[in-house]
């Protein structure tokens, strides 16, 4: 399998007024060429920080990558100087953000915003740029592209704007697209349209996608593989089938139970409690305080990684033989 991106043991810290926040604490995952990986977790778990780290957009000097490597096509991005990163951003790796209403500059035409990256990075002529821009608009499904190039963002609806944002991200034909909560700010039907668009684009251009979201419904539609993140760590990784049909970690199970599903009946159960404070994160498993099956070892030691299959990994003490014995004993009482 050709790995286009490999993140190894990434640690990102922020120094703030109240102390140091350990936002990302040893995250490792990889992305294969042409697939879609979804990083799932609740607000504050570190997923956005991770994607910002890949792009080299961690606000410095308050934020810092203190450990780890990010290998893009074999090269470690954490070692790149800013100037070199600028040649990567928008060209090899692109990113789109959550809120389409604020992602576009209100005082510039969308034509300008579409073409500027292309002109700067690929040095094409204005005419060529316009041609490409129109092509992209058609790709993302905006009618009357030639005319609308001269329009301003406020003349488009939310769904349209997000399409434009996607067009801007893809115009330089990047190999990796990071989408940070791309549908969260949109209505239901528009959400579905945008997700379909992602699928169509991936088919057409072969771009690899990292999709960041807290919404499992979104994940179910287009993800090939899923990484579940909690309190700065990835606690479970697997293919879509692995995660949806054989979830191992209590947190993953909790997430699935709090989302309505057509194949199960029963009540929705939200997970009690809130994530831990990242100023002084717990030494052991961060989910212990909210876990219905917490054990003493969970508090004391961070769970080792268990591999259930080539594609499915989880960090949970319940995988240990002794835990399974304990569960069996408790069940037979």
């Amino acid at each position, binding site marked *: 399998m050709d790995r286009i991106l490999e993140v190894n043991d990434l640690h990102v810290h922020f120094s703030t007024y109240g102390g140091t926040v350990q936002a990302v604490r040893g995250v490792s995952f990889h992305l294969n060429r042409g697939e879609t990986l979804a990083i799932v977790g609740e607000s504050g778990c570190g997923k956005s920080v991770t994607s910002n780290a890949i792009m080299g957009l961690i606000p410095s000097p308050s934020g810092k990558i203190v450990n780890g490597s990010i290998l893009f096509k074999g090269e470690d991005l954490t070692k790149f100087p800013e100037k070199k990163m*600028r040649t*990567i951003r*928008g060209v090899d790796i692109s990113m789109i953000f959550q809120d389409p209403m604020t992602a576009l500059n209100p005082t510039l035409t969308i034509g300008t915003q579409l073409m500027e*990256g292309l002109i700067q990075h690929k040095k094409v002529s204005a005419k060529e740029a316009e041609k490409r821009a129109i092509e992209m608009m058609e790709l993302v499904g905006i009618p009357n592209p030639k005319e609308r190039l001269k329009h301003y963002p406020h003349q488009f609806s939310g769904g349209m704007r997000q399409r434009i944002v996607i067009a801007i991200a893809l115009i330089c034909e990047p190999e990796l697209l990071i989408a940070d909560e791309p549908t969260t700010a949109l209505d239901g039907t528009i959400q579905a349209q945008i997700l379909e668009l992602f699928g169509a684009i991936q088919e057409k251009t072969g771009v690899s996608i990292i999709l960041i979201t807290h919404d499992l419904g979104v994940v179910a539609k287009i993800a090939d593989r899923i990484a579940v993140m909690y309190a700065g760590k990835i606690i479970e990784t697997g293919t879509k089938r692995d995660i949806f049909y054989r979830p191992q970690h209590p947190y993953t199970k909790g997430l699935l139970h709090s989302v309505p599903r057509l194949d199960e009946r029963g009540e929705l159960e939200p997970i009690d409690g809130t994530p831990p404070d990242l100023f002084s994160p717990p030494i052991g498993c961060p989910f212990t305080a909210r876990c219905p099956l917490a054990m003493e070892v969970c508090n004391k030691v961070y769970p080792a990684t268990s591999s259930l299959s080539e594609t499915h990994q989880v960090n949970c003490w319940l995988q240990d033989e002794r835990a399974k014995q304990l569960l069996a004993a408790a069940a037979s009482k």
Partner: protein
Amino acid sequence: MFRYILKRLLIALITLWIIVTITFVLMVSVPGSPFNSEQTSNEAIQANLEAHYNLDKPYHIQYLLYLKSIATLDLGPSIKQPSQTVNDLLGRGFPISFELGMVTIIVAVISGILLGILSALRHNGIIDYLAMGFAVLGISIPNFILATFLIQQLAVNLKIFPVATWSSPMHMVLPVIALATGPMAIIARLTRSSMLEVLTQDYIKMARAKGLSPWKITIKHALRNALMPVVTIMGTLLAGILTGTFVIEQIFAIPGMGKYFVESVNQRDYPVIMGTTVFYSAFLIFMLLLVDIAYGILDPRIKLHKKEGGEG
């Protein structure tokens, strides 16, 4: 855009009319008419006044005739300076004040914006602290006090600049500094805070994610958005500079309109006060209109009379 300008023009005219009316009402309510023979020194002036202001007619007729005279730009005679009309005084003094004002505005706007941008880009650095410290002083020290201080130090003691009057570029330096410091400080502060806020916006993040160079991001993306709030306060600043000319011209003995105005206030030369007030107000209102139009050009949401949403 057209509708926008029309609306602004309408408001401008109404405002002007209100001021003219207020001026008229106040003048006729001066205890003991301002136009009686105690004030004037001779019969010729008195006759002039009566002719111009129609003092024998009932108030509402006076008012209408007054409006007419304003519309025809005839601002009446002066009481205290025989054979001078307000128009004469304006003709002499205004060009000088205008020059002072224009130079001041250019200096204040350019240096204020530059300072503000620099501070925002070097947020929390040395430049930022120094610039903003200077700015707070700038808005706190009244321009006339700064003026006297400048004269005392630079003109009298060190003799670098001339003390008074208006005959060479060197003469311009001190008055302009005194008049421009306040507005420059205000512009610098506003530009800085506006810039800082713009730099946290999503579209700036997006521009960075596109790999655009920092220069391009600052000038092409950030600046236009950051300057919009600055344009909106230009009106107030202009008014401040205008009233500032009153005292600055006094202190530096510059023969501009402001000086004549202050003199007429001190001497209670009512026709001059009225005429000048109306003129100044008209001028200011016109400037405000220009500022509004400039804002309309900057902000595309106004330029293209908003269409409601697009196709879904």
